[in-house]
């Protein structure tokens, strides 16, 4: 009996010491883990930001050619000017290009997202015939290579006399947005409960009314997300716009950049960099403002 008792006491004491040690051990591990995490995150952040920093700093340099620059030019210095920016803005029809781009992007984002809300809701809540196959097609077809598409597109739009018009670009841009956004919205709405719209229907709303009035406000994150992605496509497109647009009054920013940096005899690297910054910053701000929707919008939750 006595033996047993003392043994139990010993064990208890040893356990106490162990818990103390373990607590210390875990604390250390946690600190280490935290430091390692920050280290990895900082490394990736530097990696992500460096090329952007490089463009910004190059755009502020007045040195025209790449090989004339040295590593010292990578740091902020006194030679910096805004001459590259003023050249783009004042010597070229920058604001016409901007206007064209905004007309195209805003119109195709609006049309694309409106249409995909309807079809996304239908794909999620209605008994669409051959739904599964349509979903497969939406996803797989949207991944087809554009080199195969460009020439047939050109023939089709030429037949409909849509080349060199806003409409001729808005149609394919919003179509591209419809494909991807329908899938996104459908996926998100799948995760929302049916009880609200059922209640609304019992209160006398039609099926369509219930879906639109109840689900659209609930799906706001994914709609914003889809809109941001839909905006990005036409804003950065060169392949299609370069084929369809030949009239200078309809140039978009992407074509304008090509015109400014490749077209002139003296390819000025600083001008190119400045144009990149002018084009990149607005879209970055857009992403930054809607950042929280970028995470929630994917809705790849484990419950699916």
């Amino acid at each position, binding site marked *: 009996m006595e033996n047993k008792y003392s043994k139990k006491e010993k064990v208890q004491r040893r356990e106490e010491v162990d818990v103390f040690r373990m607590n210390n051990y875990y604390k250390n591990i946690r600190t280490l883990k935290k430091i390692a995490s920050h280290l990895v995150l900082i490394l990736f952040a530097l990696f992500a930001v460096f090329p952007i920093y490089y463009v910004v700093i190059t755009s502020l340099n007045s040195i025209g050619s790449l*090989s004339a620059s040295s590593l010292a030019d990578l740091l902020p210095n006194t030679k910096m000017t805004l001459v590259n920016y003023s050249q783009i803005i004042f010597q070229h029809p920058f604001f016409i290009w901007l206007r064209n781009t905004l007309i195209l992007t805003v119109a195709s984002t609006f049309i694309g997202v409106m249409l995909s809300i309807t079809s996304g809701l239908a794909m999620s809540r209605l008994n669409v015939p051959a739904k599964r196959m349509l979903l497969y097609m939406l996803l797989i077809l949207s991944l087809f290579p554009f080199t195969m598409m460009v020439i047939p597109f050109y023939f089709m739009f030429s037949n409909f006399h849509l080349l060199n018009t806003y409409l001729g670009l808005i149609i394919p841009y919003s179509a591209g947005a419809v494909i991807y956004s329908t899938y996104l919205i459908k996926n998100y709405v799948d995760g929302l409960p049916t009880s609200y719209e059922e209640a609304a229907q019992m209160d006398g709303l039609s099926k369509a009314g219930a879906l639109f009035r109840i689900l659209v406000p609930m799906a706001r994150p994914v709609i914003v997300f889809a809109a941001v992605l839909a905006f990005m496509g036409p804003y950065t497109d060169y392949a299609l716009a370069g084929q369809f647009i030949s009239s200078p009054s309809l140039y978009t920013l992407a074509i304008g950049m090509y015109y400014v940096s490749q077209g002139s005899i003296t390819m000025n690297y600083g001008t190119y960099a400045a144009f990149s910054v002018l084009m990149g910053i607005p879209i970055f701000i857009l992403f930054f403002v809607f950042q929280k929707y970028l995470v929630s919008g994917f809705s790849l939750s484990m419950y699916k």
Partner: protein
Amino acid sequence: MSNSKKDASKEAKSRLLPKHGNVFWLKGFAVVAVTALFILGGFVVLFSHPQGSGPLSTSVPATSSNSVTITVWGSGSPGGEQHVFNSTLAYFEAQYPNITVQDSPAINVASTNFASAAHAGNAPDVYRDTSDNAGALYASGSVLNLSSYLNQSFVNSFTTGTIKDWTLNGALYGVPVNTNGVGLYYNMKLVKTPPKTVYQMLQDAANVTKNTTSTTNTSVWGMPYGLGTNYGYRAAAWFPAFGGQIFNSQEVPVLNSSQDTSAVSFLYNLTYVKNVSPKGLTSMAQEQQLFETNRSAFIIDGPWDQSLYTSYLGSNLNVTALPYDNATGHYPAPIWGSIGYFITSPQASGITSSQIWASLKFIQFETNLTAQKNLFTKAGDFPSLKAAGAFAANQTASDPLAAGWIAQEAHTQIQPNFPQMNFYWSNFHTYVGNLYDNGTHNVSSVMQAFQNAVVSQINQETATPAAPVNWTLYGGIIAAVVIVAGVGAFFYTSRKKKN
């Protein structure tokens, strides 16, 4: 929710609904819908296919007072050329108030865009491009044969070389506006007298080269030459220096000949044996940057970059003919190409006879003496008109740079403008560019592979005889295959639903 409860509710539901209610409807409807989609797509294929316009009306009015609009692509590069184009255009529109010209700048209107547009029957009426691109387009049927529209005295006012550049199978298919090719620029700060022989050029280059590998920004190179750049445009000059050529008189490539191999070996050795050129040059811009910053003695380039180099080097810039090869007894002969205006065929653009009339007036105006004089003084373009050439020679009698270009003009080759030439460019870039990037020294096997690639591609494109398409038959076969595939896919995807 407990399991038993779940099962119970499931059972209740299955009792309420017929077991396979409407499943056949679902499948049937889906198959119909998918088939309809495919057929719709098929119809678009059939009907959107461009149909050729009516036969070419050869009668063109001598004058016309009806208002007519023509579309033009390509006014030259921004700067001098575009400026001259615009002023000439303004003068033209004042002279012919009934003709309206809709112009798009050359930028962003690449040959690929022109090809798609021509195939869709939507090409502009007038296009401006190099004589070899235009030659391939003429061979494809997109370009109008101008021989019957232009009288002999007009044709004779141009230099023989440029007219040859714009003639294929006896047909004149465009009007040249300038003519040029590459010569040898040198920096007089580094090389005092121009080299007369290849041997001397290599000597000069070796003397100048100071390769300090540790800091790339301070090394000086004699003659930077990126074999992979320019798609073999500059390299073509060196085949004649070794007695070789690209195509023989039967328009068959002879790139694996010993002469062509030694020409490429010579250019390759600049980097890997003579060590007067750096490795890793991927673009002309990199060579230019070295030359602009006094870090290279020679650069092979054309007059279109002269104003750029002058702005960097000032009076130190000079130009001379590519030097005589004393070992072989031949001169290098750069491709002396030409840019010009041409009119598209009715099949490519639906051009009408009055538009052909207006286009002819327009291209004669853009290539006339006044325009070419302006192009020479404002953009440095070498004229294609004999009279403008005399004007240029007179203007530059004291200019050493112009003397260099005139010396080069004595040793040139005509730009090959038959479509087979198209295979030379990209294959040169792939095969010879790879040789330069790799530094593998196996020039003769590379040239053999180059030759094989060009021959096999020419055979592949020309061998297959074109038979008229039986649209209903093949469209039907394709539609049937696609429908079967669609139905199969549907059954595959819906199979699991039953479980």
